[in-house]
């Protein structure tokens, strides 16, 4: 549903943020007891949770890879996470997002260490206001780390875009619906500064895209700092609990 907008100027953000400002972010670890690792990630009104099971036996056995482990990502949205009810179960969109989420996360996981097994990552969006795949990736990276999976790096993700003629960090739904709007979800491996997720829809020049990617990198740095802090707190709390026991 594109909003009628003759003016292409976007002078002030709908929620009053600066153009290079993230929404408030919040991360939690250990939210699902049954899972080997779990985390939640909030970006403003977007809220995703992730759980990790594994490494565990991959069945059927013919799917097993004796060279390295398999990462299986499943992303979905709860029916009531969006304004118009989404039918429960996967659809074309969620299948594609699951695929690119796997590609965003796999490069940092030491899958060579886990031959013949599968690591399952499940992401559910509880509340959606744009950037759900990015919030899902941020949560999943934390869930994987908290499961003790060997990783070379974390993954941090945020969407950037061009709204009107402005390059903007961390879009909300109203901005995605603005006309013209270009939406670019991006994931970075913060330590090496490489991109592991890059999608785009809209229209943008090469120079503007370069600026947008730089802005995303800046946003991801802030997210990374929070992810690191949350992980450190989680593990020091665990240590403390072990000491008491």
């Amino acid at each position, binding site marked *: 549903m594109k909003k009628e907008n003759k003016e292409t100027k976007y002078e002030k953000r709908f929620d009053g943020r600066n153009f290079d400002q993230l929404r408030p972010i919040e991360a939690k670890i250990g939210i*699902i*007891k049954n*899972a080997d690792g779990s985390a939640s990630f909030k970006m403003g009104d977007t*809220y995703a949770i992730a759980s990790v099971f594994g490494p565990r036996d991959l069945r059927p056995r013919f799917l097993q890879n004796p060279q390295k482990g398999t990462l299986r990502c499943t992303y979905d949205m*709860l029916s*009531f996470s969006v304004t118009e*009810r989404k039918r429960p179960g996967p659809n074309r969109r969620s299948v594609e997002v699951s695929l690119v989420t796997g590609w965003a996360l796999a490069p940092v996981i030491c899958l060579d260490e886990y031959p013949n097994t599968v690591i399952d990552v499940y992401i559910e969006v509880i*509340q*959606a206001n744009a950037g759900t795949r990015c919030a899902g990736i941020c949560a999943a990276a934390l869930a994987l780390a908290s499961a003790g999976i060997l990783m070379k790096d974390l993954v941090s993700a945020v969407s950037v875009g061009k709204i009107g003629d402005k390059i903007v960090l961390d879009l909300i739904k109203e901005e995605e619906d603005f006309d013209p709007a270009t939406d670019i979800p991006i994931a970075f491996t913060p330590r090496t500064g490489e991109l592991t997720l890059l999608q785009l829809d809209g229209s943008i020049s090469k120079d503007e895209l370069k600026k947008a990617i730089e802005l995303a990198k800046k946003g991801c740095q802030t997210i990374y700092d929070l992810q690191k802090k949350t992980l450190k707190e989680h593990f020091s709390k665990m240590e403390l609990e072990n000491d008491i026991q």
Partner: protein
Amino acid sequence: MTFNEKYILNLIEKEQRTDGRTLMDYRKIKIETGISKNAEGSAKVTIGDTEVIVGVKLDLGEPFPDTPDEGTIIVNAELLPLSSQEFEAGPPGTEATELARIIDRGIRESKAIDFKKLALIPGEKIWMVFIDIYTINHAGNLIDASALAAAAALQVARFPKVENNKVVYGEFTNKLLPSTKLPVTCTVSKIRNKFIVDQTLEEEGSASARLSVALIDGKIHAMQKGLLGPLTPEEVEQMIDIAIEKERELRKHLK
């Protein structure tokens, strides 16, 4: 028989449980409403380590030919693989379908929601109330947790805005759903010759039978006997008595 099962059976015979509860104790119950802004109503219920969330969404549709002036409810349950090793991806299986139908019958048969008041234009446009149940952590007793979460979500659910007989998605009115006191479901499980409430996942594996009773102030509105073990009429009576007693306790958590 696994070691775990044997251990649980021995304990239950001594009227003890692995977590120190008596046979008639629920684990700690917590209800939180308004957990998802885009839902007309939503709630999260935790009973011990079990966590369930329920969201209510409303949309307009055409009435069934046999009830032209009534709205309807549609209950769906998803046992998310995210919430347990045991749950697999895919469309709802038998366990999820049974869960959804137990919750559906409790709400429908109690007439807690007046379907007649859900007709926007009788014979033409009616409200469909979608009640979607999702498990977040499965540690036993999903039925009671889901019923409680559904009731809590329905209590706070409000109508969306309507323009030209169409829903304006994402905008809400202050008008609450037309409901009276909602049913609460209590499940009593039989292990050996003892009855327990609020079974854990391990206890669920050791139970021979369960009886779920949807109640409003001691009045029975829906029941489901589950699992393979038979029950005598006397046993059923005893289990209902327990459920009626526990309804009062469960209802205290519903504001």
